[in-house]
């Protein structure tokens, strides 16, 4: 599936500061339904903070965020999740004491409804529900080719696999908007290629809108439909990879020309 012109999420004049430190200053951009949108910028540019604002973990002092046509005043992270925003993290944030399977099953939490009573009995409706979701999770496990580590506690997995499990957990939420924070950091070439393929497959086959932060320019330029560039919390460029690549401000920011 390719990008449409319909706006899924619009960030409008958002500013965020911690105490006196300004993390984001008056940034606006939009994410269209079905596109892969990259957010790039040097270290400390406010990229992760931006994602945190989008899924309600930080609350900006100024600005508006419109998601699916609705402007939300103050949103809690779990509300973002229930509206279909999922994400992965820069430093893998898996549930380390749990197995791969359980981690991904946690992603199904919002879709499971049986209460304490049936859970206690683990029989009838609760069991049926459990199995039904297990099927979905097994599909994700198949898709990500992590069958062999199904029952391994994730704390013991190598970094690359952990990133993959984390992606699986986000996918289990069947998100409309998937936020990926440096999905390929610390990976070798092959792992990166795998990850790229998963991302593209997701976007093409399931139509998931993806916003990603990535440092590997090659990956960004190949994957993304549009790119927004942040520097010191300001937006300095926004557009297709070609446009952004040619922007002198971006070149300056990355190469430090003139400083």
């Amino acid at each position, binding site marked *: 599936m390719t990008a449409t012109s319909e706006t899924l999420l619009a960030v409008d004049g958002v500013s965020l500061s911690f105490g006196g430190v300004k993390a984001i200053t008056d940034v606006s951009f939009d994410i269209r339904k079905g596109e892969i949108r990259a957010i790039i910028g040097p270290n400390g540019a406010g990229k992760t903070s931006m994602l945190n604002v989008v*899924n309600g*973990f930080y609350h900006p002092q100024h600005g508006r965020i419109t998601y699916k046509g609705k402007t939300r005043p103050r949103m*809690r*992270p*779990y509300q*973002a*999740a*229930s509206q279909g925003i*999922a*994400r992965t*993290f820069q430093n893998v*944030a*898996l*549930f*380390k*004491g*749990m197995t791969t399977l*359980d981690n991904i*099953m*946690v*992603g*199904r*939490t*919002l879709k*499971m409804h*049986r209460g*304490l009573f049936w*859970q*206690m*009995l*683990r029989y009838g409706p*609760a*069991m049926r*529900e*459990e*199995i039904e979701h*297990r*099927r979905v999770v*097994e599909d994700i496990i198949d898709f990500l080719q992590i069958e062999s580590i199904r029952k391994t506690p994730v704390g013991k997995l190598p970094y690359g696999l952990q990133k993959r499990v984390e992606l699986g*957990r986000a996918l289990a*939420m069947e998100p409309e908007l998937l936020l990926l924070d440096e999905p390929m950091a610390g990976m070798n070439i092959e792992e990166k290629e795998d990850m790229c393929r998963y991302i593209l497959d997701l976007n093409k086959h399931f139509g998931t809108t993806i916003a990603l932060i990535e440092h590997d320019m090659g990956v960004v330029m190949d994957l993304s439909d549009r790119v927004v560039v942040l520097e010191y919390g300001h937006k300095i460029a926004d557009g297709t990879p070609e446009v952004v690549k040619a922007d002198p401000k971006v070149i300056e920011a990355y190469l430090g020309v003139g400083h």
Partner: protein
Amino acid sequence: MFYRETGQFKQSYAADQAVFPILQDRLGLAAILLVAFVVVPLFGNEFLLASVMVPFLILSLGAIGLNILVGYTGLLSLGSAAFMGVGAYAAYKLSTIFPGVNILVWILCSGFFAAGIGVLFGLPSLRIKGFYLAVATLAAQFFLQWCFVRISWLYNDNPSGAIEVPARTLFGLAITGPSATPVTRYLVVLVIVVVMTLLASNIVHGRIGRTWMAVRDMDIAAQLMGIRLLPAKLLAFAVSSFYCGVSGALMVFLWLGAAEPSAFDIKLSFLLLFMVIIGGLGSMIGSFFGAALIHILPIVIRGLPEALGLPIAAATVEHLTYLIVGALIIFFLIVEPHGLARLWQIAKQKLRVWPFPY
């Protein structure tokens, strides 16, 4: 060699989702239950039943309750004895107000009162974490204990200030009071503990258990998965306190027979915490291991000099018991910080590859 899941293929997710997916585990469990239900009552003497097994099971139940909170949800609590007290006092009040209803009903219902109080004291857990939360739960411990002393309505104005257990029967058989035999008491406790352990195990293996563990392992990520922290933590407090409450009611009604408020003092809270940590955080079987180590081991040590005919004074034995238990706590933590349950897993793993080392 014998403990191996090779060749056991699962035809369905249902079979794979079972709590004990491996045949040998199921056989082992059946053997344990057989011993517990048949061998122990048949061959155990009164001391074994009344002073070893009944307290062990009741403490295990309390440890499971605390484990749900500390081990599964990652909320450190030092107030579990007070929640046990709430259960005990609730069961006492209910059974004296409605003496006609079977005592077991009230023992189980007492858990709901403990759960309610637990939720109340769990509220701060949204903001307070780690050791800070532990100290906050100490407020519950001391305040509730003060209530047990001060609110004489709770103990029906007994001049002894204690709750006394009236004799009650089940199917015509005395289960509480002086004429309840240790075997009956043991079997009643065993049934309750086995059923409640099964239910707890089901809960922690399902969605709710995963929610708790997610909150424990990384609460921020859990939130972004759509988990609401406060309800999840409060549910953990509720279920945990329910278990503690029932365990407290059992303690007074089927073990002690009468209890002063000091039966629920801070020492008991610490003991439960020992059991949970030594046994293994986030492990059902670990709760039993922990209770066994903390409750049974001192009894064994105390019994050793007599059994071996060594003339050691009772007080010295007690000192030695403290020394040895303390040393063993440190020893076990060094050998396996993740508790006896992990040792158990390692042992199973070794069995799996036996007789070859790898």
